[in-house]
């Protein structure tokens, strides 16, 4: 054990001497060196082929000319803008059941749900308050919702001149 350690300490490995030693080989050899060189050159050519592919395909460009294409610009499905309620396609009523899971899931206290009783004395959504100024767009509320009743919308021009403009009432009467 002790002698082994001494041996490895005393020897300078080819890699440490700065020589090309291909993977899986302990010592420098001409064949290994040339293979390594050829593989290296091939990988460089591959990389150049990849970048050239991007160069000659303007269709792959991801940059948006924003103010100019404002009318046509559609945000991508995964983009998380402000929170929005999902409504039932047939009746137009929100899918929200006022269970309050999103309110509990929110780390910032962004959401407040006020439930009310309908004529049949069932608990339904009264008001859905969304304080956008506190929201970090983390998506936890959407993930916590058991009914798929909320989603992240794709709006992105969200700046406002006044803080109070960011107190949004997603459902129910404004105050």
């Amino acid at each position: 054990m002790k002698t082994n350690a001494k041996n490895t300490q005393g020897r300078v490995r080819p890699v440490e001497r700065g020589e090309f030693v291909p993977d899986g080989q302990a010592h420098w050899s001409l064949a290994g060196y040339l293979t390594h060189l050829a593989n290296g050159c091939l990988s460089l050519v591959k990389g150049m082929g990849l970048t050239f592919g991007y160069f000659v395909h303007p269709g792959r460009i991801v940059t948006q000319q924003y103010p100019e294409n404002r009318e046509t610009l559609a945000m991508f499905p995964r983009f998380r803008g402000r929170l929005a309620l999902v409504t039932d396609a047939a009746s137009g009523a929100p899918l929200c059941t006022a269970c309050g899971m999103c309110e509990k899931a929110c780390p910032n206290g962004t959401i407040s749900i006020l439930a009310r009783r309908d004529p049949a004395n069932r608990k339904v959504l009264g008001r859905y308050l969304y304080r956008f100024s506190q929201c970090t767009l983390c998506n936890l509320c959407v993930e916590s919702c058991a009914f798929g009743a909320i989603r992240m919308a794709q709006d992105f021009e969200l700046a406002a001149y006044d803080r109070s403009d960011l107190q949004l009432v997603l459902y129910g009467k404004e105050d």
Partner: protein
Amino acid sequence: MIDTSRFPATNAIGDFIRATLPGPAAELTNIVLAVLAILTVVGLTPVALIWMERKVAAHFQARLGPMRVGYHGLLQPLADGIKLIFKEVMKPEGADTFVFFLAPILSATASFMVLTVIPFDHHLQVTDLAGGVLYVIAVAGLGIMGVLLAGWSSNNKYSLLGAMRSGAQMISYEISLALLMLLIVLLSGTASLREIVFSQAGTVLDWWIFKFPLFGLVAFVLFLISSTAELNRAPFDMAEAESELTGGFTTEYSGISFAMFFLAEFVNMFMAASLTTTFFLGGFLAPQFGLAPLDRVLDAIPGFLWFFLKSYSVIFIYMWFRWTFPRPRVDQLMNLEWKVLVPANFFLLLVAGLFVAMGLV
């Protein structure tokens, strides 16, 4: 043998001035005109290259690049230039004032001086020195002086370290560049850049990249690699590494002094590309494919257009390198030079000597 009467060394403007003015005055006027012409090239090259670099970089990365200033950002270099000119020129405390401001000028001058021997066309060359290659190697060394002095005079340890690393790199890679130039001198039997171009007259296959079978292509690739390193361009830009470190030897420079380094860098890139063109790609000669009708059409296009087309293609390759390859470490860089490129160049020289001795090229 090449018919030199097709390529007279004189041009219309020079002849006209010689005919109208008395001897010394004509020579003086011609010198002034030549300097003005070179200054125009020096002035316009960075403008074209800044725009090209930004657009090429953008498109390699699936971006658009500058689009706002002028059509597709064509006026962007102008905007960049104006910004640099109006910035305050600052000098760090304790810096050596004279050397500090001399260094950028030295760098820019070196690249300017090399352009005087480049044959842009058969009649567009300021002077054709018999030892043109020697002159190129010697003057290119002045640029390193600029870099080292810039680091030394900045009174900043990071500048100094950056300059030493740049200097070490440039000096190392100059050896392979010089060896490759020597290879071409050996093959063409002349050190004059004009004659080197004429030694490649004929079809495309008579260019040194192809005329020296297979090894020519290797030499061309080695020349590209060493000149990229000599230019301190990515992937060999450890000293500056703009995406990770501060600016290397340019750390303390601002405003117009920085612009001078910038200008020198771009003119150097053009210079390296034009040397590649001259040595390997037939310089100002039109590509000929041995098909009479096509060759006549290609030959009708003026030589300097071919020269610029070829040079800018080489510059495109430099940019392609820059936006594709990751940076090696400093020790890997030195390994590449001293353990791969220098032996390979000596081997190429040996082979070229054999070819020349046996009359194969």
